[in-house]
């Protein structure tokens, strides 16, 4: 299947006020075709988009991490049977087989998918562009310390780096180290400071200036 350059750009009546670019035109034509053939329902497409914009995302993963930080029994369940422990939250569409990787002061875990873009959708949402990009996919396995350093997150020499190349339908979530200065914080307060990048493993969780107690 090759990219066609001369698509029947419209012929489907009114266009937007601004001309569509190549892929936008091709996607519009494909959607029209699949609707006409009875293969997809445009209302369902709207709902899918809405679900991925509002119902899944890194806030889900952050809740998992925060609970593991405040509840040792939950953390134990999460590390030994990740799929079931995450299922306790009842996240939208959650069905992935999961492995949670615990960071410690001596071990840093970094997740990548060198072959495509495998990512734990129901706990982190859709992956960011950088995660799917050639620079990250190429370099994370051969030079993880360089990647982390460039991202402002250099790893000390005496800390071990474990890179997890996500080659199966078994997805990874990094459990970051709980930052100092958060003693006594509630689960909700903690969840608010857990970032997507920390759960991929390219950042650490820090206490943002001004967000105290």
């Amino acid at each position, binding site marked *: *299947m*090759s*990219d066609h350059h001369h*698509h029947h750009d419209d*012929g489907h009546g009114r266009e937007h006020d601004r001309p*569509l670019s190549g*892929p936008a035109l*091709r*996607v*519009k034509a*494909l*959607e*029209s*075709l*699949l609707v006409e*053939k*009875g*293969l*997809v*329902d445009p209302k*369902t*497409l709207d*709902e*899918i988009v809405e*679900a991925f*914009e509002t119902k899944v*995302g890194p806030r889900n993963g952050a809740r998992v991490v925060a609970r593991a930080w405040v509840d040792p029994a939950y953390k134990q369940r999460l590390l030994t049977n990740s799929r079931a422990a995450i299922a306790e939250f009842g996240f*939208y*569409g*959650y*069905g992935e*087989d999961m*492995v949670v990787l615990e960071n410690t002061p001596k071990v840093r875990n970094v997740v*990548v998918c*060198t*072959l*495509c*873009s495998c990512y734990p959708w129901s706990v982190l949402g*859709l992956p*960011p*562009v*950088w995660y799917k*990009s050639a*620079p990250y*996919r*190429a*370099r994370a*396995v*051969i030079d993880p310390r360089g990647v982390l350093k*460039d*991202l402002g997150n250099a790893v000390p020499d005496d800390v*071990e*780096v474990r*890179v*997890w*190349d996500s*080659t*199966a*339908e*078994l997805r990874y979530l990094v459990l970051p180290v709980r930052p100092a200065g958060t003693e006594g914080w509630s689960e909700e307060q903690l969840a608010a400071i857990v970032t997507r990048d920390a759960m991929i493993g390219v950042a650490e969780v820090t206490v943002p200036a001004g967000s105290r107690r």
Partner: protein
Amino acid sequence: MNGVHDMGGMHGMGPVEIEQNEPVFHAEWEKRVFALRLAANFHRKWNGDMNRHAVERMPPAAYLASTYYERVLFGLQTLLAERGVVTREELESGVAAGKASVPGPLAAEGIETMLRNRKAVRRGENVLPRFEAGDAVVARNNHPSGHTRLPRYARGRRGVVDRDCGVYVFPDTSAMAGDPRPQHLYSVRFAARELWGSAANERDSVYLNLWDDHLDPA
């Protein structure tokens, strides 16, 4: 296949740049093609492994020049035609020659169920494992022209089984012939120096998920 999608360890791709406050989608058409692919998956005319293989067969120069969602579009068009869901003529013309012979499209109420079941590739078969945690293994040095989840950088390299993850569909055959060939999946630890030589940090490692058919005893 030894394609450009198998990027692990390549040089010269440039810096990793994180976009701050990145939106979920960057354009309307990205939303539509993402949703189209999911809604089309509903008809079960192909599996996730076939989907990956369709994307990795994009011509290499185009693959590297494309964004993620352009590759999604390419993969979807490829599968629709190859699996006989629409004809190439219909894709070219944009005009349907008739209704598809499918029960009906995915309804909004079915989205969540479909997502939940999407990754049901863990299997219940009682297949014996060939390895157990602690076993020394070597990744096979095979170069299939079809789909494989064994990246080039690990082929012929020695590792140690970290854990047995259970029985899973084998993507290498699932993508090519729809043959699930259920077998044990492992997490295998490779020392960074085994993969990348003496310049790598001696503490570091790369963990790969590999299947029985990727491995031999070391």
